């Protein structure tokens, strides 16, 4: 086991990693920016080193200063958390060259999964379904019509250089496609300076279901379970749960198998998550793999009693997997991301001092946070201030506990996403388990959240 681990991150995940290290008897080094001097991870770690000014590129992304800290304080390993340097293959390589263990997958696996379109090709060749679409870019009508024969209708036209839904349009027929093509091209040209398009089969109301995997790097890869992360707004996850509702045992088995296969194809080691879109009761499509621990990992921990962060550290230290191939799961868990954002004002970030902070407790409630009364949320980083995780024997009990917990949660001074979550939890479609990635758009009237 390691003697000392440096945590190259901040916020709740830095706190989470320090806790795991402490339980394993491993020393901890926090790094921080000048804006995070009073942060909880700095207070909790055995040692803390300032690595730069507030801007992330000068501090949490400052590889020379982070590596120098690792060197002068004599750490064995670096845990990157999520975001920042977690999926940077170059950083993983530098760690290796410096003989410091990177607690994560090999640089090569990060690299292969990092190029999203190359990763989809790789998976397609490995026999894992991906969303049918044009192979490469489409530059004219003839190519578009040929591609449409493969995918079928309806399909979606996307800008090759795009993202975030810009330049996207759904078409129902060949004549529709002819009409939409020119407009999509000029829109992509205007927005991204590149008119290249690609076509993809349109999924009307898919679910976002992902699979947590763990690989020990010695030939054992297991699927720990799935999470439904369909409750999203503008591709940002807000609420996650496990097990996924309305998922047949057969499709579930297929998902877990595909996830293990995806990890094996790239020679994966450590914890990772394979994301799929699931349409109807039969179709799964590989979307991408996140080669790191994820924000929503606690829901899996709650139903399996596996400490994923400790497993990450153990695997990186060269220990063999001590988990059964078939992981047993008990009950249901939901996570709500509490962001310092104002749902009444289009989720506008709400940074500043927290004047009151009383997190919920009681049976089945877990809160992962770095916030406290008197803490000032810096404007430089993401808005996540707490994760509330509720466990219940079944989904109904988990929902009831979450509603109870969110009502207990007192946060003063900043606006949060709590009112949004309460609205989701009260929604009849959500309660029936009828969720898809369009849920927030279709079922939640955000205007109701505007307080008079």
């Amino acid at each position, binding site marked *: 086991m390691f003697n000392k681990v440096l945590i190259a991150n901040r916020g709740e995940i830095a706190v989470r990693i320090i806790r795991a290290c402490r339980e394993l008897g491993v020393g901890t080094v926090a790094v921080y920016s000048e804006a995070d001097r009073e942060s909880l991870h*700095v207070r909790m770690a055995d040692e803390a080193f300032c690595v730069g000014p507030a801007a992330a590129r000068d501090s949490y992304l400052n590889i*020379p200063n982070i590596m120098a800290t690792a060197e002068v304080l004599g750490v064995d390993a670096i845990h990157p958390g999520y975001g920042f340097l977690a999926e940077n293959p170059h950083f993983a390589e530098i760690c290796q060259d410096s003989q410091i263990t990177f607690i994560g997958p090999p640089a090569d696996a990060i690299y292969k999964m990092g190029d999203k379109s190359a990763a989809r090709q790789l998976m397609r060749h490995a026999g894992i379904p991906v969303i049918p679409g044009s192979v490469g870019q489409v530059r004219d009508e003839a190519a578009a019509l040929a591609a449409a024969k493969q995918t079928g209708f309806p399909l979606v036209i996307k800008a090759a250089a795009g993202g975030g839904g810009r330049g996207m349009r759904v078409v129902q027929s060949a004549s529709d496609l002819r009409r939409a093509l020119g407009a999509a091209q000029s829109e992509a040209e205007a927005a991204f300076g590149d008119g290249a398009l690609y076509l993809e089969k349109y999924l009307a109301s898919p679910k976002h279901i992902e699979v947590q995997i763990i690989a020990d790097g010695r030939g054992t890869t297991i699927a720990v379970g799935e999470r439904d992360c369909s409750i999203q707004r503008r591709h940002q996850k807000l609420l996650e749960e496990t097990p996924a509702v309305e998922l047949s045992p057969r499709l579930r088995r297929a998902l877990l198998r595909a996830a293990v296969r995806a990890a094996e194809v790239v020679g994966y080691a450590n914890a990772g998550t394979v994301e799929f879109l699931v349409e109807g009761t039969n179709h799964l499509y590989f979307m991408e793999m996140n080669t790191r621990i994820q924000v929503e990992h606690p829901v899996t921990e709650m139903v399996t009693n596996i400490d994923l962060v400790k497993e990450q550290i153990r695997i990186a230290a060269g220990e063999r997997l001590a988990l059964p191939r078939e992981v047993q799961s008990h009950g249901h868990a939901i996570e709500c991301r509490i962001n310092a954002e104002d749902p009444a004002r289009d989720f506008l970030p709400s940074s500043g001092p927290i004047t009151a902070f009383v997190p919920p407790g009681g049976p089945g409630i877990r809160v992962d946070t770095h916030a406290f009364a008197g803490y000032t949320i810096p404007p430089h980083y993401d808005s996540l201030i707490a994760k509330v995780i509720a466990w219940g024997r079944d989904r109904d009990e988990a929902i009831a506990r979450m509603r109870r917990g969110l009502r207990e949660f007192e946060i003063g001074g900043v606006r949060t996403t709590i009112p949004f979550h309460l609205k989701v939890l009260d929604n009849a479609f959500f309660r029936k388990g009828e969720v898809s990635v369009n849920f927030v758009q279709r079922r939640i009237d955000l205007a109701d959240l505007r307080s008079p």
Partner: protein
Amino acid sequence: MSEHGRFDLEEIRALIRLAAEAELTELEVAAPHLTVRIKKDSGPAAETHAAGAASAPAPDAAAQAAGQTVAQERRYAPIASPMVGTFYRAPKPDAPVFVQEGDTVEVGQTVCILEAMKLFNEIPSEVAGRIVRVLVENGAPVEYGQPLFLVDPSAVA
């Protein structure tokens, strides 16, 4: 907690000694993350109360002290570390140090070396003045923004 993360008690003690040696009544050191202000109350009222449990300086004594210290009041500027690394005062182990207390430095003059990842980075002074204190021991690890030297900018050569 890091002993390097902030001014520790030893550093503050050193500053108090420094203030006493220089016979200052007030010393303020401003680093990016922390400001230390040491004020010596030289009024006779404060002295007599010093042994007692509750000391409340007489208002007239405080006003008097403030008047006296205007001329002596100094504000020292720190040379802060621009990076993380190991602090070396000399270019080689047996070579003379770049600067010592009492030396005057110019802007851009090398004051120390910070080693990180086997690279030796010469650190230039950002201020001109007289070095009044070397705050870090040779060979110690330093973090970003940590004060390395205290400079008296009013003592420009």
